[in-house]
């Protein structure tokens, strides 16, 4: 059976889903452009780079348990 992950791990793992999926109507626009990229694309790339950092933190939490 799946060992229940800690609450903090679950909350942190929900961040990528919230940032890139559920909140789509808040950031799906072209303006303002960021470094020349449309806003929605820049937003996704930002979270894409951040997600491994978040999951690395979760990895640390789960390993210590």
């Amino acid at each position, binding site marked *: 059976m799946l060992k229940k992950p800690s609450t903090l791990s679950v909350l942190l*793992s929900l961040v990528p889903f919230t940032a890139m*999926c559920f909140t*789509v109507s808040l950031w*799906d626009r072209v303006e303002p452009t960021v470094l*020349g990229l449309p806003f929605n*694309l820049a937003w*996704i790339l930002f979270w*894409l780079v951040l997600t491994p950092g978040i*999951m690395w933190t979760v990895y640390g939490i789960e390993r210590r348990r």
Partner: protein
Amino acid sequence: MTPGTVALSIIFGIMGLGSAIGFLAANKRKLNLEEWAVAGRGLGLILVWILLAGETFTTFSVLGISGWIYAKGGPTLYVLIYLTTGQVLIFFLGPLLWELGARFRLQTLGDFFAQRYGSRLLAATVSLAGVVFLMVYLQLQLTGLGIIVEVASFERVGRNPAMIVSTAVIACFVLSSGVRGVVWVSVLKDFLLVGVAVIVGIGLPYLHFGGIGPMFAALIKARPGFLTMPGGTATLTHSWFISTILVDSLMFCWPHFFASAFTAKNGDTIRRNAVIMPFYVLPLALILFAGCAAILISPGLRNGDLALLTAVRATFPPWVLGIIGGAGALTAMVPAAIQILTAATLLAKNVYRPYVDPGMTEERVARVARIAVGGITVGALYLALNTSPTLVGLLILGYSGVAQFGPGIVLGVTWRRVTSTGILAGLLCGLALAAALSFTGRDPYLGLNAGLFGLGLNVAVVVAVSLLGSRQPNGFAAPSAS
């Protein structure tokens, strides 16, 4: 030499090199079923990363991403996201699946169902459905491969001969070296693919517009609203976006994910792999830039899948086209090989053995699997040569279809009360509903991905039937196989 000859020689050179690596990889190893199907469970972090990336980044992600952004615009962004969120789910589920795989010597998705639920009917149903979805996926790889060779050779080599030759090569290296061969071809493929992503993703915008920023500025001016949802479509709205990401995040349900996950040395490898995987999505963003550039460079193409290569052909010298074509061809060959291998093992081990010859040894299973490689290859080739528009519908069904395995996998490791009858009933209902909606042109339905409706019905039926039936033993609670 004509441009077509230059490009073609490079493409065939790269394909030849890839195949040679595939053939050599398994050299000197005894190729039993365990080695052939899961590389003896001995791959470390880097090789597993490459294998999982290799099967995720297919011709669909290269031609498909650029083709989708070309034809549909903004909704295409979903691809970058589900590949990332899917890894979050694998982070939690993957290590456990690996552990169960090692403890009960599981080699396939079908083995997982057989061990957990003790039902050969359920395992065979899952396996057969899995083989069907794999065939569809495989057919797409072959079609992509045909397109690449056709465009890169300036139409000198037709799509069909290209598909037939390369499919034969793929089948041969699957037969001779198994999954280990695929991994090593994948190493070459990944280097080339990242190089190609940089060349097209940065090169196309710079050569035509003087930079990525100016390219987007020109695109936003020329096609206002195209880069947000629903873009060039009428139905791919925000609710479609959210529901599709949720359904596609269940990508661990693909049978070849199980096969690849079992190749890892330990569960921790899978987990660390899930952490770093999103970095591999970044080259896809570059491919997306290239697709955006193609909208302005090569407007008016009827088939969006041709957009990237057509723009590249109009911009770069033939040898660059050759390298891109070669990388693209390997990008088709690697996942195709994994899919053939997985489908063949499923058929031999989870359908043929339990129903035709239960006493079969592993050596015999391996032999039947090799025969199945031939059958599956010919079948997918037949589909690819006789492409019809409904196959695009079939692919969408493939993704919402494999998602229906999700309840059986997730509830199998989280809920003691779940029964094989419940899972089978839920699976059939979910598949039927998703198929009915897709085939009647109702995907998306009420603004949501059709697979989500199937999944909802699936879970409801599983819970109801499981609670109504009597308790069943959990195969994962049994003592281990070895």
